[in-house]
């Protein structure tokens, strides 16, 4: 290996990093600038936390945290306001459950097919097609759900409920599911492709068929990556706004598990309420931030779990 240092006799027998010994001012300046770019992301996160902390504290000064977290009536803009966040948390929860019910089987089946069964030719077509699905603006998916999926599902499953409302949390959940399928499929596919060939070949050598290799060898070996995919998709579903706002409606917070009716979620509340001008410092303004803090915390926890799982599957086979 060549040495970067040009000092005579430098580093005999030791390995030095490939960096010139005389450091230049320009290099230091560039290094500093690049560091600032990278550090900006930390500043953004701090900005998020700082911007939310003040109004949230001010909110909690007026509404006790117990009432906020366990109250069952969400009516922040009524004459006698009520700040029980449970209805919109449950709304978010229903969206999460329905969307994962759609996305886990569809996404994982697609991933197994792409990673174990599909020929390179088929893969080259399907993988980009899924990525295109990921790129569709969420407004479009929301409108599609509201105008197309809602009547379709209503006609296919009339027995699910009375379908009186033009909004439906079930339909919105299915649409969010469709939205997160590519995420599940692509991360799970990556995880399964990272499983070493030798494991597969060993199983084949013992006489296993493709099905057994896929489901009993590759799938368990990639499980931490697959879990990460699901958790990340869940975090995405919790934070999804436009689809939920359009297809589940934003006006009707209620604590109910009826899939055929509209419901308000945390994101839909923020987006529906925050359109433009709300006077700073009012309780309505602070409420946005309190809900935002809850949402941020929830997704932060999910992301941290997912990152941990991703790291585990990376470390296993590298």
């Amino acid at each position, binding site marked *: 290996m060549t040495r970067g240092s040009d000092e005579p006799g430098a580093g005999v027998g030791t390995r030095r990093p490939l960096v010139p010994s005389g450091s230049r001012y320009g290099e230091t300046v560039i290094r500093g600038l690049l560091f600032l770019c990278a550090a900006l992301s930390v500043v953004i*996160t701090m900005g998020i936390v700082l911007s939310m902390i003040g109004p949230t504290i001010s909110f909690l000064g007026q509404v006790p945290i117990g009432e906020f977290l366990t109250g069952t009536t969400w009516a922040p803009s009524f004459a006698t306001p009520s700040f029980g966040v449970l209805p919109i948390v449950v709304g978010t929860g229903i969206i999460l459950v329905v969307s994962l019910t759609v996305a886990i089987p569809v996404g994982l089946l697609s991933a197994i*097919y792409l990673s174990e*069964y599909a020929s390179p030719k088929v893969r080259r077509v399907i993988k980009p097609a899924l990525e295109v699905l990921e790129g569709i603006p969420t407004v479009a998916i929301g409108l*599609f759900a509201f105008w197309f999926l809602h009547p379709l599902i209503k006609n296919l499953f009339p027995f699910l409920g009375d379908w009186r409302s033009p909004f439906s949390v079930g339909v919105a959940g299915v649409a969010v599911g469709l939205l997160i399928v590519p995420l599940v499929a692509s991360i799970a596919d990556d995880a399964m492709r990272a499983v070493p060939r030798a494991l597969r070949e060993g199983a084949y050598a013992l006489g296993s068929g493709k099905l057994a290799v896929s489901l009993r060898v590759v799938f368990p070996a990639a499980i931490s990556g697959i879990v990460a995919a699901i958790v990340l998709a869940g975090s995405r579903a919790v934070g999804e706004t436009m689809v939920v706002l359009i297809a589940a409606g934003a006006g009707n917070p209620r604590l109910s598990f009826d899939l055929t009716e509209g419901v308000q979620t945390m994101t839909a509340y*923020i987006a529906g309420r*925050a359109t433009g001008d709300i006077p700073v410092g009012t309780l309505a303004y602070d409420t946005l931030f309190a809900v935002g803090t809850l949402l941020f915390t929830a997704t932060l926890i999910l992301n941290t779990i997912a990152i941990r799982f991703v790291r585990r599957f990376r470390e296993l086979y590298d």
Partner: protein
Amino acid sequence: MPPTATPRRVRRAAEGARSATMAALTARTRRGRATSTAFLGIMLVGLSFALVGLLSLIVFMFVEGGGRLSWTLLTEGPSTINPGGAGYRPAILGTLWVISGVIMLIVPLGVGSAIYLERYASKDRWWNRLIELNIQNLAGVPSIVFGILGLAFVARGPLGLGFVAIAGSITVAMLVLPTVILAAREAIKAVPSSISDGAMALGATQWQTTRRQVLPIALPGILTGVILAVARAIGEAAPLLLVGAVNFITFDPTFTSRYTTLPVLIYNYSTRPQEEFRVLAAAGVIIMLVLVLAMNSVAVWLRNHFETKYREH
């Protein structure tokens, strides 16, 4: 032991074992074949669910809004009275302003961060690990939270820019920045170390190596990441609702004026009860889909093109 001296009964045993194994294996595969086929079927159903969903979305929007496609859609402003003659002109211009601001911000910042993390940062330092973890986490923060940040920090608060296009740019740029950083890092990581080691061995400094050797090779990958981020930024509506894009404006916006964007105006139209607005919104979705899908296809093509080219060397 000489190889020819295999006793007869050993050979018989081996034969028997082999036939038993073969019998077991063939029986197994035959039995498994039905399940295998069934599973293949289930997989294809799952996969087609996603692809059919995508296809029916596109077809549906064309059926719904296709009749409204004309130049007036692009050249006319919004109207509450005359939806039949209304269009998206201010929204399209607003989108262009917001996006150009986003590009100006994310290219230097995103690529700079990626270069720092891949070429300069030592993984032993806690602050570098913090930055890395932070970017991963930031990538998963819901877009509406960036809207809150934009509302509190950019439109009001410390920056106090007001509800103008540039506030939208900054908000969306913060949202897509992690995407750019992660993609650019992958692209820089993929540059063979022999190339940078070679440059360093000839006495080039870290920055000279990065600028003249690493970045040109990583460029297609970085470009792909930027295009994907911009495509996402174009379709983003939720955070912009909080930083003023809901204005129903009829003039041509500029960088520092009130503004609206394509997805926000589509949402705005779709909430109106009249049938014509629904058609208008669907036609707007077609414009947006064409724009976004074209950008995505370019990104995917770029990546595939340069991936294969690189392998051939």
